[in-house]
């Protein structure tokens, strides 16, 4: 560890300027990333509270804690908050914002003011969503299906729709910024083939954000106009087609699922390479599979609509295309495994989260194949099987990757180390709690327990109690990092510039980095991940 650094505190992005104005009007991508980090944590806690209340209700078969109306609102707000205000901005807006300029060797994103604007849009959207929650909630489900959302719901649909609409533009602007930055701001020698795999996955994510989000924006705008003017395009009363809403909704919202997993895959590629001391196996295949997932992701939305009465032939095509997505996803999983093979694997916290990701994502992905199979899907549609499947991908996958990435780059972001022992314990608790929460839900769904009800048949109770117990363990697993991350801000050991011995431009500058990232524009002379086997991890 560096000892001489303790004597002087060098100027960095955190202490360069002070005062709340220097944060709220900053155009520094690193500070904006921290702003995002704080705000998405607030929404994560909020969404977690809704989930806990649901799990509490489901410990008994009777609907004894909440009325069915309240329960409808709970799962709706859990979905809206977690998807639009936590998962979609999670890795892109925090780690992506912080790292992409540094990884490509730039002083900032291409449009720093637009970056700040995107945070303000996110906050504005969040305020509308909070207003909807405080006013009494929304009960449409996070999918806002018509005609219930446009005509029949008496809940606060409009503020929620406006909130998601505005937050969508924050997502678009983030994606736009990343695309231009990757194209135009790379340092000398940073060719496309030398980009870190995290940048490749963020680039693929950005393509989805830029091409998909406008479609949900216009869809929600039409829903809003219908609701306000009581006429409209999806209204069956005048010959409109409510199924068209689902097509337009899922045209975005299925690709959005990949907004919620591709960045996680990018984090895992970095972490697995670093803690195996090896260049990730099949660099170009991992990079290319990110793009393949982004492209294929736009062609599979119909698999959400197998039981809506869409043409059987359309369903068959969507089913086959959905199977195709498994190919690039599997390429990644096999390549991470192959990277570890004969590598010098060390079990630092980020790597533990990566192990968790690979296992849980594999389960989530394989059950996704079951759901892409037409007949099986019809059998388990609208059951807890679906709920378990997408939580394995989004929570078991994305949240694991997010936490892994946060641990991996925490020394770079804050200049402090977290307590390794506690972090490993938390990673293990999270893994156990997660499986206990969502594993039983596969069984429940397969046995026929329908989602979105506050009561259920008594024979499902043991597995539901197990799931609720798991949720409380999972909550502990999330609370521990929250505590020691806060603790480390003042009490943590000072971090050296490269605590993991990792490769990549972000590790060549100080921790925390100076405002313009590098003292001199870096010149890249070697390929990405030029790991030599004998290097050791310094902390552990």
């Amino acid at each position, binding site marked *: 560890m560096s000892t001489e650094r303790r004597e002087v505190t060098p100027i960095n992005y955190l202490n360069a300027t002070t005062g709340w104005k220097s944060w709220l009007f900053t155009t520094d991508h690193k500070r904006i990333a921290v702003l995002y980090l704080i705000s998405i944590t607030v929404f994560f806690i909020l969404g977690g509270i809704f989930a806990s209340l649901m799990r509490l209700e489901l410990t008994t078969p009777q609907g004894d804690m909440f009325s069915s109306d309240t329960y409808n609102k709970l799962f709706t707000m859990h979905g809206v908050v977690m998807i639009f205000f936590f998962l979609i901005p999670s890795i892109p807006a925090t780690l992506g914002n912080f790292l992409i300029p540094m990884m490509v060797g*730039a*002083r*900032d*994103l*291409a*449009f*720093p003011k*637009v970056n700040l604007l995107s945070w303000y849009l996110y906050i504005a959207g969040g305020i509308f969503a909070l207003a909807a929650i405080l006013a009494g909630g929304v009960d449409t489900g996070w999918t806002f299906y018509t005609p219930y959302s446009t005509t029949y719901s008496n809940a606060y649909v409009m503020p929620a729709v406006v909130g998601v609409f505005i937050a969508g533009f924050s997502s*678009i602007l983030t994606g*736009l*910024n990343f*695309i*231009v930055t990757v*194209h*135009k*701001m790379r340092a000398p020698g940073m060719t496309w083939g030398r980009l870190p795999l995290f940048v490749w996955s963020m680039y693929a994510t950005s393509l989805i954000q*830029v*091409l*998909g*989000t*406008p*479609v949900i*924006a*216009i*869809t929600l*705008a*039409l829903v809003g*106009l219908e609701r306000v*003017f*009581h*006429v*409209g*395009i999806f209204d069956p*009363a*005048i*010959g*409109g*087609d409510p199924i*068209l809403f689902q097509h*337009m909704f899922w*045209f975005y919202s299925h690709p959005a699922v990949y907004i919620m997993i591709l960045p996680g895959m990018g984090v895992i590629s970095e972490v697995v390479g670093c803690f195996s001391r090896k260049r990730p196996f099949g660099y170009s295949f991992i990079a290319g599979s990110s793009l393949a997932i982004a492209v294929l992701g736009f062609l599979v939305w119909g698999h959400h609509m197998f039981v809506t009465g869409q043409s059987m032939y359309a369903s068959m095509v969507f089913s086959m295309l959905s199977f195709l997505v498994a190919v690039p996803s599997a390429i990644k999983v096999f390549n991470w495994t192959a990277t570890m093979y004969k590598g010098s694997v060390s079990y630092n916290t980020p790597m533990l989260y990566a192990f968790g990701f690979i296992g849980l994502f594999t389960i989530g992905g394989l059950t996704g194949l079951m759901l892409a199979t037409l007949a099986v899907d019809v059998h388990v549609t609208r059951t807890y099987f679906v709920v378990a499947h997408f939580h394995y991908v989004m929570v078991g996958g994305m949240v694991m990757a997010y936490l892994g990435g946060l641990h991996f780059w925490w020394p770079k972001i804050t200049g402090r180390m977290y307590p390794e022992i506690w972090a490993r314990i938390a990673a293990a608790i999270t893994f156990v709690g997660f499986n206990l929460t969502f594993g039983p839900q596969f069984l429940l769904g397969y046995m026929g327990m329908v989602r979105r009800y506050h009561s259920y048949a008594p024979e499902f109770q043991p597995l539901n109690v197990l799931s609720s117990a798991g949720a409380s363990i999972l909550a502990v697993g999330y609370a521990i990092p929250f505590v020691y991350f806060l603790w480390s801000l003042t009490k943590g050991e000072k971090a050296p510039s490269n605590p993991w011995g990792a490769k990549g431009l972000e590790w060549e500058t100080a921790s925390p980095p100076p*405002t*313009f990232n590098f003292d*001199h*524009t870096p010149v890249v002379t070697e390929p990405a991940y030029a790991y030599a086997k004998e290097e050791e991890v310094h902390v552990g």
Partner: protein
Amino acid sequence: MADQAVPMEQHSPFLQHHFDDLDQQLDSSTLGMWVFLLTEIMFFGGMFGAYTIYRSMYPEAFASTSRHMIPWLGGINTAVLICSSLTMALAVRSAQIGKRNLIRIFLIATMIFGIAFIGVKFTEYYLHWKDHLVPWAGFQYPEAPQFFRQAQILFCFYFFMTGFHALHMFVGLGLLTWLLIKNERITFGPTYYNPVEITGLYWHFVDIVWIFLFPLLYLIGAHS
């Protein structure tokens, strides 16, 4: 950042700190605007897609609405927008060669065309309102009662699509006003004309959207 080993160009007052040179800055802002226009295509594309589906479902009902459209007003507006694109292109050219007076003239001309377009558009809205063709304000369709419901969908599309287009025109006029003020304060020239360039791209895009809207909304019945 105090950095000595930089080219002279870095001292250009227009160069933002995080770019290496003005070329990189121009390339970035232009690419950024193109990516933004891509999102706009998807935004309008959602409406065009939904329109296409309903038109193939209800072709006769949609065609029957043509008699209520005023193609010559729409035609004038199309011509007005094409002229505005010409003056916008000339404004960009003037910015590239750094002629402040020409920039001012062409920007004002573009704005006049834009305001004329909106004036004509709102006149049409007023006429539709008088004919009870606004779906949320007592929609009536006495000539072809069998199409009463389906024609309403077309008019929903008509107002939503042209409404979003008009909204984009207002944004464009705002950008032109901003350029007009900027043109008095700083000197555009061969090394720095990005704002005019990317506003031009935006303006042409909004123009092209109208080129698609005009036949789809005004001329549906013309060939039948």
